[in-house]
């Protein structure tokens, strides 16, 4: 970076990039506080408030729609999926990184293969399984099925983190009289905490984001989560409650966006170490 104009071009490019990702969300935020009369007036400037902004739509979303129920369901599903994922993926990743010898080294590829069978291929048979287990229309169907998406991904991400921790650390712990499990639990695991943090955020948002399972397994309003509930309940036939819809999307997007942004470097590191020994 030398000279004034180059710096200017650089910052201009950054601003363009950020505008590309955030303009839709900014517009959604503007919409939340618009009065209906102004919102649906032809030719009105959509970016400014000609009449006073209102909180009505936000209040409506939280008091007169099932949105709080959806949010609660999403939260319960998300936390359960995160718990199952961490409990299963952390030991699996450690095992592949340290204990299973040379066939652990190609496991990155094997995990990738699981992704070749996407939810779109599985939702019909899984719907049958869910019905057989008596879980149709229950949030527990999603708790049961969503870890199939998060476990492979998080195992892969953690694999990279465990590989980047020097082996000498385990060996020193073993020499000090730790059992192998203690070496994992007390010495290696604390080093991998950033990776686990990244996994938690990823698993939570993947569980929130899945649409196909949510609409297939659950058709009762009370058990719906945000992904399936907001599009079905806040849209009645052809009537869209736009300001409330926008309030729902931003209420979810902003906290998650902040979580992702703060974990940005960890995510990059995760992919970096995961990719380093790939193949």
């Amino acid at each position, binding site marked *: 970076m030398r000279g004034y104009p180059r710096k200017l071009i650089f910052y201009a490019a950054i601003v363009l990039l950020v505008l590309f990702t955030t303009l*839709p969300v900014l517009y959604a935020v503007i919409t939340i506080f618009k009065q209906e009369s102004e919102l649906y007036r032809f030719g009105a400037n959509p970016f400014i408030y000609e009449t006073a902004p209102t909180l009505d739509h936000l209040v409506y979303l939280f008091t007169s729609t099932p949105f709080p129920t959806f949010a609660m369901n999403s939260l319960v599903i998300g936390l359960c999926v995160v718990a199952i994922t961490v409990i299963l993926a952390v030991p699996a990743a450690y095992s592949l990184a340290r204990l299973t010898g040379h066939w652990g080294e190609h496991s990155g590829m094997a995990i990738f293969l699981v992704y070749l069978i996407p939810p779109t291929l599985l939702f019909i048979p899984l719907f049958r399984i869910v019905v057989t287990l008596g879980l149709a229309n229950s949030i527990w169907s999603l708790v049961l099925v969503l870890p199939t998406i998060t476990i492979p991904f998080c195992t892969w991400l953690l694999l990279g983190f465990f590989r980047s921790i020097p082996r000498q650390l385990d060996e020193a712990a073993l020499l000090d009289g730790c059992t192998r499990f203690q070496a994992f639990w007390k010495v290696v695991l604390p080093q991998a905490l950033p990776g686990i943090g990244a996994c938690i955020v990823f698993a939570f948002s993947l569980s929130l984001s899945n649409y196909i399972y949510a609409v297939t397994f659950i058709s009762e309003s009370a058990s719906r989560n945000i992904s399936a509930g907001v599009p079905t309940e806040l849209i009645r036939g052809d009537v869209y409650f736009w300001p409330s819809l926008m309030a729902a999307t931003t209420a979810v997007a902003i906290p998650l966006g902040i979580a992702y942004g703060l974990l940005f470097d960890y995510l990059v590191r995760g992919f970096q170490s995961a990719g380093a020994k790939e193949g």
Partner: protein
Amino acid sequence: MKEGTVAHDRPTGLMARMALALERPRVLGTLMLAPAVLYVVAFVAVPFFIAIALSVSDATVGNPQIDTFVGLDNFISVISQDAFGIALRNSLLITTLTVLILLVLATTAVELLAREFRGKRLVQVLFMIPWAMPVALSAITWLWLLDSQYSPIDWVLVQLGLLGPDGPFGPSRNMFYLGREWLAIGSVVFVDVWRTLPLATIIVLAGRLSIPRERIEQAQLDGAGFFRVLFRIIIPALAPVLTVAILFTALLVIGEMSTIALLTRGGPGHATQILPYWAYLKGINSGDLAQGAAIALFLFPVLLAAAIVALRFAYRAGRD
């Protein structure tokens, strides 16, 4: 805790012998790996084979038993429907276009985000928002932005004189982004690019930061300009990572039905139909489980072939 025994002693009790076994990497390794593997096998591999069984049966939601073998009838019946060709074409077209645009945008974004600058944290947060949004919710946001009457994009175009009675884009004051076939497909591609750019960028950035700084600096010392460095050093070194990014995002895009389900519902007619959404409409909405499974299975060979090619390429490039 059973780890209490010292490993060198000869094992006497059952507990002691178990503790000793746990010291062998193979045993402990298998025990730690097994739960995750079993979980995935139970809910991915088993349903996958049920899907195949369903596709050669005559199961419906009303009569879900897989008891009548009908051979390839479902596949033949699916192929003979008009929607099939359109859905297959759209699935492949939307995915390919999205990935190509992503490649250019992600490589550009990476060149920006690989540097240190003031306010980087804030930029990272704002940059990640599309990926943080659940797909269905970002689809709804775009549905509002592309609204047939109140689209703010139309408003801007009218102000610029591009739309409206005198504008080059026609006498109407609206573009009807989702109501015209090619404009609708273009809109869907745009939304897919928007929502997957953060992930693609993170993957490529991970590869970019692994390129030794000395190699870039050496080239710059030798007098290579920005574009020469980009095309001669950075992009070749990124090839394996770009392949992984392509595969990852392609799988995400080709398997996602909520953008289409919410933006166009496959319409107008079947013009923007894609295989996953068509499978959903047939299998769940119309209750024909067997045909739904057959439609969904059409994607598998395509995905498998693409993945084998991509992974081989990444593997070879990674060894050089």
